[in-house]
């Protein structure tokens, strides 16, 4: 699922919304990071409607112009839940890894214990196996 599609579905999970309402909600949800343009929104919306993830809810005429609201379908909710779970699992993994990670400064001088005989640097078996430099 693309990022705009994910945010559109998330916006509609909060209730039916019309086109510009979705744009505003997506901007809020993403902290202003995703600013959908109208062309982008309707490309996404067309695909979501044809895939049965989103459907028209109701129509109203505002200032003589058609305003159509969309809502999430049951299938759309399930797809969103599955994608959100995938992203949450990936985020959990990243957070767990980061707990044990400490930044290492590049170019740090080797400690006395790591220096080899006559000033040469010894390669650890792990580094050799990885094919990397010490």
């Amino acid at each position, binding site marked *: 699922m693309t990022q705009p599609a994910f945010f559109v579905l998330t916006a509609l999970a909060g209730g039916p919304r*019309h*086109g*510009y309402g979705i*744009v505003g909600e997506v901007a809020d949800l993403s902290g202003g990071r995703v600013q959908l*343009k*109208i*062309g*982008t*929104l*309707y*490309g*996404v*919306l*067309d*695909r979501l409607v*044809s895939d049965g993830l989103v459907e*028209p809810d109701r129509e109203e005429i*505002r200032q003589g*112009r*058609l*305003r*159509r609201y969309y809502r999430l379908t049951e299938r759309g909710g399930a797809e969103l839940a599955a994608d959100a779970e995938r992203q949450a699992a990936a985020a959990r993994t990243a957070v767990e890894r980061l707990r044990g990670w400490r930044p290492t400064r590049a170019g740090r001088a080797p400690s006395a214990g790591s220096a080899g005989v006559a000033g040469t640097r010894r390669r650890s078996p792990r580094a050799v196996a990885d094919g990397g430099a010490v």
Partner: protein
Amino acid sequence: MNTLERRYRRVLRLLPAPYRARWEEEMVEAFLASVETDDPERAEYVAEFGRPRLAEVASVVLLSVRLRLGLAGTPTPRSLIWGGAFRIVALCWLLTGAAMATAFTAERVRALGRPLYDDLAVEPPVFVTLSAWDLASMLWVVAFAAALFGRLRVARGLAVLLVLSTALTRIVENLAGAPEFWWYGGPSIVVEVCLLATLWTLNPTVRPWWGPWILAWLGGVALMLAYLAAPTTALAWGIVDSAGLYTIVLVPAAMVQLARPRRDPAWSLALAVMIGITLIRVLGALPGVLNIPPEFVMAPLVAAVVEVAALVLAGALMVVVSVRALARLEPDPHRTIAG
């Protein structure tokens, strides 16, 4: 209807008619809502003198291209053909790069350590070596394999790297050089960048059957090795250059496509596009051919004329076949939200 709305509707005309019939009113409403303001004076000014922002126009242009290539919205028979054609062009481009890089590197490895110029007495002698550029060119093979097996980010990243590094090197090398470079080098760089853009038509959900593509790559390598083994004088005067090689492949391919009883329209269209690109390359190389000393110019000039004639004929046939196939398609249904 105010001026701003009229201008936005004019931009929306870029979209395919069936799509517009379904979404135009909603898009206009959403767009006008996006520029609404509480200040009545400002609202009046915007309505009469405002223009859609460039980013909004760009989003519609991009949507129009993506719809026509079946990359956005609901695919139509027409968009599937256009999208399929550009995917074929993208894969053929990577295939060409991969086959050329493999053959060049194989040839270099075979000749490693031998004198570079067999028939010239150069002092001190220059020997064939394997440069970093030769090895880097093998990234074409990685990019081709990545595209074939659905690793599109890798394929695109490597292709961007390869095209930009080659283009920048050529530009820097020729900055102080002859102005003729821009006549034939310029279009060639533009063509490469356009071909690079076709990689964004590749779709992770449409995976090509890799078997025939691997066979085509091996065939391309064999053809390139045969080309490299040809007499040096024939190559040196551009009787058969790289554009000539493309012609040798594309023109028979177009004839085979023409003879097939059930033609895939995407292939006809892809061949028409690739033949058009090759024609640009051949015509771009013509000034170089005309600079050849008069005593040697006849053979490459005849070769260039034959190439142009064959490409124009094959290209025209592919265009006719493609246009007919597209015209035979049912018009897209005028879809409404209810139906």
